[in-house]
């Protein structure tokens, strides 16, 4: 009797203890995530600058962006193009290099470090500065092209090349995705390959029937995280190209920043942020829904 009450007491204590440990998270989530999330939705229906109080204007912000704002669609187009260029490029390199690095080689940790390094530094102002200098007309990229007999290119003067040069900066940072693929490769049981070898399967065949299917959950995770990040890219567009030329790199993150913090149109910018949110949500939902057709889970599919 005494024993059972003490056990009861202990488990009750443990409940409170558990809640106590996650309390910072609950407060943080309510104050710094949920409240801003809700109020951003509300602000998107208001006319609001930092100097005067908000007034409710219904759907006007949304109507304005779709019918009048000359930069809304160019910005959306630039963002989608950037996502489409950078994310597949990044994940492609990450996967290929991870597969090669997973084989037994000398100096493997040196290679891993070299490939990871751009991910460490890539988001910094220093690398944005570097990228700007590399792709200027007399920068090293052109000097290299000239040295192999190709004429210099005006990277930041031609829209399609400008978006490519900032996408390249993102692709260059494939190391963090690569490390996750590597971790996944390490978990693939060796005997699967042995069975494949006995069956006489080629290396390529084994990649497509063993390695790739078992990596799809990680591919899925990488795809979601990198796409969510790419949709919000700001630093490169702001520091390297400043949106130009002809708004070809006027990414949505840059538009959002300018409307909110340079033109002080907080209500309108909130509406813009909700469009971005909807784009990201749609992508995420499609990815999750399509998951059952292309990802492979050992335990039936739990993310």
């Amino acid at each position, binding site marked *: 009797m005494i024993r059972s009450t003490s056990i009861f007491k202990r488990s009750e204590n443990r409940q409170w203890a558990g809640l106590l440990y996650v309390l910072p998270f609950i407060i943080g989530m309510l*104050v710094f995530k949920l409240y*801003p999330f809700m109020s951003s939705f509300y602000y998107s229906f208001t006319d609001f600058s930092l100097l005067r109080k908000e007034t409710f204007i219904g759907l006007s912000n949304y109507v304005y962006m779709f019918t009048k704002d000359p930069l809304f669609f160019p910005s959306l187009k630039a963002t989608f193009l950037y996502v489409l260029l950078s994310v597949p490029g990044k994940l492609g390199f990450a996967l290929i290099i991870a597969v090669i690095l997973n084989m037994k080689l000398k100096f493997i940790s040196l290679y891993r470090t070299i490939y990871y390094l751009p991910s460490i530094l890539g988001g910094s102002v220093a690398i944005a500065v570097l990228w700007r200098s590399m792709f200027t007309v007399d920068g090293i990229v052109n000097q290299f092209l000239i040295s192999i007999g190709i004429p210099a290119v005006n990277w930041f003067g031609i829209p399609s090349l400008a978006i490519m040069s900032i996408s390249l900066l993102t692709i260059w940072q494939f190391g963090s995705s690569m490390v996750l693929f590597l971790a996944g490769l390490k978990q693939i049981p060796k005997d699967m390959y042995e069975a494949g070898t006995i069956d006489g399967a080629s290396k390529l065949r084994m990649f497509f029937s063993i390695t790739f299917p078992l990596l799809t959950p990680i591919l899925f995770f990488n795809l979601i995280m990198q796409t969510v990040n790419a949709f919000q890219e700001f630093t490169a567009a702001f520091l390297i190209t400043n949106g130009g030329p002809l708004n070809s790199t006027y990414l949505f993150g840059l538009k959002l920043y300018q409307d909110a913090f340079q033109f002080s149109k907080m209500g309108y910018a909130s509406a813009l942020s909700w469009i971005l949110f909807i784009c990201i949500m749609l992508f995420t939902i499609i990815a999750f829904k399509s998951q059952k057709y292309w990802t492979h889970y050992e335990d039936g599919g739990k993310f």
Partner: protein
Amino acid sequence: MTMRIRISRMGRIVFLTVFGAILIYPILWMLSASFKPMHEIFSTVSLLSSQFQINSYINGWKGTGQFGFSTFFFNSLLMVVPTVIATVISSLLVAYGFARFRFPGKNMLFSLMIATLMLPNAVIIIPSYLLFRSFGWLDSYWPFIIPAAFATYPFFIFMMVQFLRGLPRDLDESAVMDGCNSFKILTHILLPLSKPAVVSAAVFQFIWTWNDFFNSLIFINSVKKYPVSLGLRMSLDTSSISNWDQVMAMSVVSIIPCLVVFFMAQRYFVEGIATTGIKG
């Protein structure tokens, strides 16, 4: 057969080396450009220069305006160090709660945490700015430190939950037998074993906060309080193309702390990511 294997192995090494050299070349070029005289920076792809000058470092460090890079570095440390400490402590406590206890609403809270992992910062940045303004936190480092203290980085919580789940529960139970309370179990038994996860989180957070540009740009507005990222951007703006050597030199200096932290922690770092993985 063995010949073929040897060739393909050689091929791989050649590929990895050439590809790695291309990837690392921009960083090496930046380093070499910072020591080159101005006129050589844009005239050659070579990493070698005719003369070796460190003036660009001396002049760049002084900065272009009233405040130099000593101020910006000091500011960055004031911003980054408390943020890292707050992140690690709060994430570990919350992860411990999720990994080892049962309490009402736990599953819902855990799902919410995963959902906030995908909540874009861009959506909440405007209300956050207004909130911090009403708290009087603008132009200070509180917008970085306080949210970190309230475990607003779900990525780290998730990583630590995964790690803690991998540690055997027998450890906790035997500690209970010895009369440890739950907090003591965390600090005396689980924490020392969680070093890879803790170090990885600290390294990530250090590098992210150190390199952070967007939030710094929004929340910090007096030059006196600029962290390195904003200081560097200012020197780029004011000097534009006139002294690239100094800009390159300060770019190099600005990434050194990240490199040092990364190389110091590399062993734990790779291990931490590999063991926590993302299989859940």
